[in-house]
């Protein structure tokens, strides 16, 4: 188990083995590459260290297949929120209402499905629509009326929390239909012959690894076609090996329990989808431009108001999704659901490399930040640290991550 721990810290693969074999030149290249992307690699290294620390501390319990599976399920709603929050923060705004909105959607989901027996697929669509409308309403005030997002979403936080209690009449409502529970708590179905592993999960894991490797090679070839500089082959292979190893470890861990949780697949689709949009779509570019320099973006013809409006609409929809997953996982809608979720999502974004002034950050970063928080939560629970100290430690981690970033930037002289 402990050998897998080292392999899990992906990009900066242990220099002891492969680095020394390839000589000092490769090590130098790696260090150069890391320095350029200090924030991302720094967080990955930190994540690796945190995982290693708790793996040792819990005698390997942290990396038991059942626990890894749990970890994914426990953090899925925060990670969903963190994706949307990252977009909000990149555009230079903030959203404090997502925790309350999560609870609010849970409550209307219960009203739809528990009280009124609306079929669950229809109810899910209705809930997402309500979330989108709630987000759009806030986005309207922020983008078109120019009210600061902090104020609008602070108001939203109070309004949605209050509405939750009104809809639930102060009580907890449940249970949810079985179909929805299966989506939120269930795993991929088992197929094929009996092996010691979950077949479909293994297949999917291999497919993802193959896809990543092929994509990286194609990318490299196209860069060469345009006569652009590419990193040397040995460094490139090293990177691929590290990524594949990390994916493989996660796949094996999940496959040796009940398989991949369905929520993980939803999450994966969101990460890939939003990552692609932020990187390649025009609207993604416009979001970065608005956060990086709003006056310059306006003078470049970016429709800043429309973009901000859409960002908040999207945040509302993701909050609705998180609310559904949360309610279905606990099989009840509670007035106290989603407490402090907004703060966890914001913390995840900042740990994952967002900047207070906007214009910086990646979807993957938000996920890394969220996983750091998730592993901390889970690990500290396993070793029996109380929630009091957990909060203190999480606070210090947030401060340290952003402090490191500020220090690193100042050293770079920018």
């Amino acid at each position: 188990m402990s050998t897998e721990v080292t392999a899990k810290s992906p990009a900066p693969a242990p220099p002891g083995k492969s680095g020394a074999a390839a000589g000092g030149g490769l090590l130098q290249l790696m260090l150069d590459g890391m320095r350029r992307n200090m924030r991302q690699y720094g967080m990955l290294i930190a994540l690796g260290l945190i995982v290693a620390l708790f793996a040792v501390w819990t005698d390997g319990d942290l990396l038991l297949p059942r626990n890894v599976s749990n970890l994914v399920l426990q953090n899925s709603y925060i990670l969903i929120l963190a994706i949307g929050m990252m977009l909000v923060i990149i555009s230079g705004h903030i959203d404090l209402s997502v925790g309350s909105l999560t609870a609010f959607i849970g409550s209307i989901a219960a009203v739809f499905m528990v009280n009124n027996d609306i079929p669950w697929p229809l109810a899910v669509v209705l809930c997402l629509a309500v979330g989108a409308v709630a987000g759009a309403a806030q986005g309207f005030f922020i983008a078109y009326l120019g009210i600061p997002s902090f104020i609008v979403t602070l108001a939203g936080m109070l309004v949605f929390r209050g509405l939750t209690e009104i809809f639930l009449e102060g009580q907890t409502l449940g249970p949810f239909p079985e179909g929805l529970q299966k989506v939120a708590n269930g795993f991929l179905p088992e197929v094929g012959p009996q092996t010691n592993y979950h077949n479909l999960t293994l297949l999917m894991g291999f497919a993802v690894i193959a896809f990543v490797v092929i994509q990286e090679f194609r990318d490299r070839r196209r860069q060469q076609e345009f006569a652009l500089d590419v990193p040397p082959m040995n460094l490139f292979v090293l990177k691929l090996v590290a990524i594949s190893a990390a994916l493989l470890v996660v796949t094996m861990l999940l496959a040796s329990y009940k398989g991949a949780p369905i929520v993980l697949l939803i999450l994966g689709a969101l990460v890939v989808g939003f990552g692609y949009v932020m990187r390649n779509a025009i609207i993604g570019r416009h979001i970065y431009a608005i956060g990086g320099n709003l006056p310059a973006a306006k003078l470049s013809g970016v429709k800043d108001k429309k973009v901000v409006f859409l960002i908040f609409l999207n945040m509302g929809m993701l909050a609705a999704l998180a609310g559904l997953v949360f309610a279905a996982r606990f099989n009840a809608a509670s007035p106290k659901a989603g407490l402090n979720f907004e703060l966890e999502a914001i913390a995840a974004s900042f740990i994952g490399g967002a900047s207070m002034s906007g214009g910086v950050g990646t979807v993957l970063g938000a996920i890394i930040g969220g996983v750091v928080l998730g592993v901390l939560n889970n690990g500290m629970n396993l070793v029996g640290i109380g929630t009091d100290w957990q909060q203190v430690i999480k606070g210090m981690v947030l401060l340290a991550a952003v402090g490191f970033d500020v220090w690193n930037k100042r050293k770079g002289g920018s």
Partner: protein
Amino acid sequence: MAGPVLEMRSIVKTFPGVKALSDVTLTVQQGEVHAICGENGAGKSTLMKVLSGVHPHGSYEGDILFEGETCEFKDIRASEQHGIVIIHQELALVPYLSIAENIFLGNEHATRGFISWTETLRHATELLRRVGLDEHPDTRVADIGVGKQQLVEIAKALSKKVKLLILDEPTAALNDEDSGKLLDLILDLKKQGITSIIISHKLNEIRKVADSVTIIRDGQTIETLDVKSAETTEDRIISGMVGRDLEHRFPERTPHEPEEGAAPALEIRNWTVHHPIDQQRKVVDDVSLQVRRGEIVGIAGLMGAGRTELAMSVFGRTYGRYAGGTVLKDGREIRTKTVPEAVKNGIAYVTEDRKHYGLNLIDTINRNISLSALGKVAKGGVVDEHGERQVAEGFRKSMNIKAPTVFEPVGKLSGGNQQKVVLSKWIFAGPDVLILDEPTRGIDVGAKYEIYTVIDKLAAEGKAVVFISSELPELLGMCDRIYTMAAGRLTGEFPRAEATQESLMRQMTKDKEVSR
């Protein structure tokens, strides 16, 4: 006169890549009003920042003697302790604090950290009387006009026991009446023994208040003249400001021959814009001009003449409040109410302030270049990164942008290279009309030449270019025609052959009363 109160000797100040002051000597006599004159970018403001400690001792070369002592100010506080107070063009008042609170900000009447309001009020009232401001000291600064705010700044300076008062373009944002009052106050303070340095473009003001004037050009002292002497005419000052020789080189241009009959590429008719906050003030006043294809048309004007405001209000109404006028392209009226509309109609505006309005400094070269026309490298809303990179690489080579790759953050480039990125961005947008606002501001001579070459090429390709600049030599070197602006109005139009620096400067310094 009791001898010099201030001597600045051989001041040299370099910024990375630019020598802002190469050898400036300034001598100010005790009790006089000393004017400093020069084109935009000549180094006046830098000189005053050196004097007031904004640029601390050690960051420049040369000596400063104040009241006979050598001074080594490490910050503004140090210079203020000696009685040197600078009032910047952009006022440094806190709008939501009262007049009295602003006057004593950082210098409160307090015992053990607690403010004595009676003492504050008494002292503030006294200071307001001295500057002739008839407002209650408890009035919020946001509730009084710019002219009165200027007086509050002076009251603040007086509270610091000012001996030498520096005013950087104090009347640039004021109307005639307020300007007059302010100038009277400066003369009044002179009687009370306060020496003033006033930076100004307005020659009639200088003649009214100043005893002597020092002219600075290209970071060097040209001469100091006695304003009261009969030889010091406005023409004399102007010729000192502009210099005689054209030092910069320009690419060879064949002057544009206007096509008979063809409608101008861009025509602006009766354009009027009000100030965004002070809505009584016309920042652009009934301006009409036209530019033909293949033509480079200059707009000359000093600070506050309304050139940038004209350009930005035409480009998607990004400045001020529209109060009338139409824009025509190729003879047809077009809508330019929003930036996307203006861009769609083939107009591009390259800002004078590339750091704040032109570039996303934390983003890379390629993404900055593609931003205003992402649709050109995208299919179905998805950006083709490789195509985008090819475009950027193309510009990196053709514009000679000095950077290892197009993935370099723009913030790390030099000013000249940043300017090339902004130009690339707008050339990529494929406009028919380019409005270039101070395209060579703050960049070195070599990069300037490269930019001139690009502008020349754009005109040769049949684009219409509007060239806004404060540097007259570059307008004379590049333009087919030059308009002059002053106080929001067009004050003249010169074909290239008839324009000289002197004739342009005369129209640029024309004040409202003179033109009436």
